């Protein structure tokens, strides 16, 4: 295992487990939010191109 140098195993493990749990349990929510951000960024970029002329 490469993830060494754990100074406070208990707290670190807890937060990690919590974050993984959140991401797994609300996978669809995360995907929708991220997808929206993805589309938003692409739209902003696409709109910016014609303005550059």
């Amino acid at each position: 295992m490469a993830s060494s140098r754990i100074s406070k195993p208990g707290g670190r493990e807890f937060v990690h487990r919590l974050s993984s749990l959140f991401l797994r349990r609300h996978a669809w929510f995360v995907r929708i939010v991220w997808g929206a951000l993805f589309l938003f960024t692409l739209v902003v970029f696409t709109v910016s191109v014609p303005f550059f002329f």
Partner: protein
Amino acid sequence: MNALRQIDPVPSLFDYYLVWHTIVLSIITMLAYAVAAGAIFWHRSDDWMAVLISTALLMTGAAASPTLEILGRQPAWFWPVAVVQGLGLVLVLFVFYLFPDGRFVPRWSRSLALLWIGWLVAWAVMPSLTVEKGDLPLALRYLSFLVSSLTHTLDAVRYYLRISSLLLVMLGWFGSGVFAQIYRFEYVSTPIQRQQTKWVVFGLILGVVGYFAYRGPLLLFPGLAHRGTPRTLFILIGEPISILLMLLPPLSMGLSMLRRRLWVIDPIIQSTLVYGTLTGGLALIYLGGVFLFQLLFRTDVQEDAADFGLLLYVSAVEQVEAIQAAPGGGVVYQMSEEPAERTDFAWGAGQWLLTRVRDLITLLVIGALVVWRMPAVLRRTADTARARPLASAGRGVVLLVGGWLGALALAVLIVVVGIMLGVITLGQLSLATLGVGFSGLTLALFLFWLLGAYGSKLVVSYLVGDWLFRRILPRYADRHVWVLGVGILFYMGARSIPVLGWLVGLAATLVGLGAGWLLYRETRQGAVELAQPG
């Protein structure tokens, strides 16, 4: 307003080619970043670090595009562009501090990350913080009165300072990010982590170098900011190289993930959750702040507003028909009577002579003051310059360049602190910081300029006068006033030669300044040695 019109009102075919060149490269960059972001998210959406990196890649790819800067000037698109650019800049720095295990390494990078967010907020909010002349402290109001005829130049200087301060701060912060990655790679990472992150670290660093080495000169050097052969060459050669380097971060991330099994091992993420939430919160505060400031500092002119004043129009040429306004009080038209510019030889020679005489009198007056109040300093500085002319000139170069750069850095620091204080609503403290800071800086710069413009010339003049007197009239060599007076006359004579004179002036500035610096250093060292005997 668009990129082409900014360069020239009548763009040529080649200008269109340059714009296409930039657009195609921007699209390639955006695609590479978006594809890498999508791939990382698709594979590891259950891992916070991977989510952070994919988001950072996505936003940075867009934020780095020059097209977004143009779009941001459209009022309707200000918000979306601010969100993309703000998030892109913040997240990419978090990647530098957190990659690959989600811990802030070194520890101080945590505080720097927070400072960075605060600075970005301040930067974005600042355009709305307009300061009225009446609000300024008395000293600044007086200063602004003194330079009111230079408003246009001042605006240009302010814009230049703003851009260069942004670049300097960004360079500083990204430099800290690069340092953090190198430090982590060398001292913190395990051998396996090193193997997995090697290419990513390499890619991230080269990406930052590629961005700054291209964008910095374009913004900072006036020769590259305006249309012309240097700018064209710089864009044609520099942009593809910059883009190639900027493509390395997404490429190396993607490859490391697929080939080196990055993140397949169980990474432990401690801070990302907390700091992700914090970033979100700060982004909200940022958005709220910008909204609030816009609301507070907006000027509305009603559609039915009317102007009943008198329009006074003064012009050097006939333009009566060009005046469209019809104010209630009527229009008064006046022809301005400017004297025609003199171009004949006698006039030019007279002007030249007048400048020289003015310089001579100034030098003589300041020289008299120096001989009267501190003859020993002048003599010792001249002795130092005679004993070590080359060392003095070298120190002079360092002092001259370092002095102005130091002043610039100090000005940036004062502005940054002022903005920070202003953003946390300590407006009075902010104005006081700016007022006291810039007054002190102005005074220091004035003294520095005085030393460079006159002090150094006096040292060299004294040196010349001393040499002459020792050769011709050794009996009077200890008469400081005569020595300096004759030296100044000879110096001004050499200074008046068209091209050579300029070089003489430069050499005098460097040698005089450097000798003063050497003497100051030696005196201080002597004092320290006396204070600590043995």
